[in-house]
């Protein structure tokens, strides 16, 4: 046994000496970045635009001469929201493709399964699409996040709504899983700040077809404000059921329901719905010239209109590019992390938040803003809530 161990140690030494100071995934003319997406599974609707948004930002950077002369290459693996496939994908990206960092891995189960491998291999784990605290806490030199947990957004949004509209019986319809429970914690915390408690709550299982009993139950409890911890389809179903039975209660949906699909599918039934927006939806109608040009470029490149997920993909890739620029020509994991820890971004073309990272705080933004569906589209009705 012993000789083998020595041999292995010797081999490792030579390998690391051979690799020199340069970090994996960085060569003289290229930076390789990995991403584990869902392109075929249950949230492929999110994964495809996220990938396209990232691709567009990297292509923009490459067209402008790259980052300090290095071209950016995005390597995307499809895990189909399956943690087992995600582990294989992470291994491939680490060992065979030798990527420099992981960017925007999608889905909490995927992130939970792969994040330990990624940081153990010494690769930065950047801005995963998983609003889970462990993606930035406890502070780890390689973990960075730009999406706060639902809890933070929802506490502020609930407090703001109750404060400004004077609701007295706030209720919750939630998906019976981690996502729903996390929203519940946020709503309860927000209500506590204004001296109220949750008046009634009811849940549904993922994939539920019909929400009539839940809506009837909330109505019977006399709720005057309903928070929805739902995704697009259930948001539409809940609103449609309430309006159908003539119940015109105010409803507020989490960022998961803030999607153009909500009003495309829901039509008149979802008019007046409140939502929490972290990044505004890029509507072509009424866009600033810069945003309109971006939408046109996206459409020309991918043959589809961008949505809020495309904007998020573009934004995370943009943060990567900005940090890599600041890290200077001698790009290494250490210089990249140091640059990211000092990154303060300016306003972007989407009207998204300004991201602030520091050595003590790896979460770039904690604030969402309120939006409402008016005339068949989301309109922002508040600034970022603190």
């Amino acid at each position: 046994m012993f000789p083998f161990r020595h041999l292995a140690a010797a081999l490792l030494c030579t390998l690391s000496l051979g690799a020199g100071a340069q970090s994996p995934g960085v060569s003289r003319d290229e930076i390789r970045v990995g991403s584990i997406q869902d392109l075929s599974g249950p949230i492929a609707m999110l994964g495809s635009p996220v990938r396209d948004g990232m691709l567009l930002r990297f292509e923009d950077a490459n067209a402008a001469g790259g980052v300090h002369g290095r071209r950016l290459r995005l390597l995307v693996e499809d895990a189909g929201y399956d943690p087992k496939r995600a582990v294989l994908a992470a291994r491939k990206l680490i060992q065979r493709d030798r990527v420099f960092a992981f960017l925007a891995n999608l889905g909490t189960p995927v992130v939970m399964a792969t994040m330990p491998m990624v940081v153990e291999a010494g690769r930065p784990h950047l801005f995963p699409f998983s609003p889970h605290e462990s993606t930035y806490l406890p502070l780890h030199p390689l973990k960075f996040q730009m999406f706060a947990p639902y809890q933070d957004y929802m506490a502020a949004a609930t407090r703001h709504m109750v404060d400004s509209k004077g609701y007295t019986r706030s209720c919750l319809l939630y998906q019976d899983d981690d996502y729903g429970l996390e929203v519940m914690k946020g709503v309860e915390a927000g209500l506590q700040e204004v001296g109220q408690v949750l008046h009634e709550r009811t849940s549904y299982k993922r994939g539920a077809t019909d929400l009539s009993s839940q809506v009837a139950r909330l109505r019977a409890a006399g709720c005057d404000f309903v928070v929805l911890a739902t995704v697009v389809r259930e948001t539409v179903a809940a609103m449609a059921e309430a309006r159908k039975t003539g119940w015109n209660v105010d409803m507020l949906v989490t960022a998961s329901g803030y999607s153009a699909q909500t009003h495309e599918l829901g039509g008149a039934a979802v008019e007046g719905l409140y939502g929490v927006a972290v990044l505004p939806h890029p509507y072509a109608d009424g866009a600033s010239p810069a945003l309109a040009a971006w939408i046109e470029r996206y459409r020309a490149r991918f043959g589809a209109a961008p949505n809020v997920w495309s904007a998020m993909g573009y934004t995370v890739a943009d943060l990567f590019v900005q940090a890599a620029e600041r890290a200077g020509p001698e790009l290494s994991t250490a210089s990249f992390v140091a640059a990211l820890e000092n990154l303060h971004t300016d306003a972007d073309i989407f009207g998204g938040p300004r991201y602030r990272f520091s050595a003590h705080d790896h979460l770039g933004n904690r604030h969402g803003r309120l939006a409402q569906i008016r005339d068949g589209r989301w309109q922002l009705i508040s600034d970022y809530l603190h």
Partner: protein
Amino acid sequence: MLSFVQVLTSGIAIGCVYGLVALSFVLIYKATAAVSFMQGEVLMVGGFTVLALNVGLGLPLLPAILCGVVLVATLGAGLERSVLRRALGQPHLTAVLLTFGLGLIMRGAVTTVPAASHGMHRLALPFGDEPLRLGALAIAPQHLLVIVATVAVAGALSLFFRHTRAGLALRACSENPQGAALVGIPVAAMHTLAWGLGAALAAIAGVLLAPITFVHLGMGLIALKAFPAAVLGGMTSLPGALLAGIFIGVAEALAGLLLPEGGKDVVPYALLMAALLLFPGGLGTALRQLRR
């Protein structure tokens, strides 16, 4: 009281969809003794096919539905001819795994079309979203459509099995394949017919579900509720399967309204187990005993 009736009608409508998918399970099982685990995916393919014909090719809704159902029925029959026939006479597990695999392939095939997999889609109903008002009761048109269509499909199936040569032959095959073969019924052709009909039923369920849950990749998950309905119906009884579907739909809806939070997810299945304990042969057998 009003909310009770309101929820009851929704429960019946969703139960009808469970029932239709359960019918497709039972139809195939009766005729070929194979449990098909691809019915959910067939349902999803049915929804997307009609959507493609309606939105993609611009066919009006009704012809699109007709063509779509026929196409999916052809798909079911074609799969029987090419693949599923080989599972005959093999252990049950072979057909289960085979259909499961075929379901995965269908799902994969749909994801290769970016326009299909990157969003949810609306199948517009000709009579809008305005609810029908009966006094204070409001019934969504899509719920009414589901109930009416289910009654129509059940009636058509019953006529088919009682009064047509093909229907009688199919029944004969399911009762006794050897006997049926001896009197000159083409048993293999009947198997093809059963798979085709089963696929058509799933496609119809998909179309009926489309206005309620929209057309998307995961809409086939409803088969997870329909399969217990088929079991509760006794696996061999068509009216039993339909009744059991409605039973599960109503039990789920009412439990959500009346029981304390947390109870509603358990109770429908506890009831299901109780029903199976009381009538081990399923609701179909119980119905037959009642008639005697």
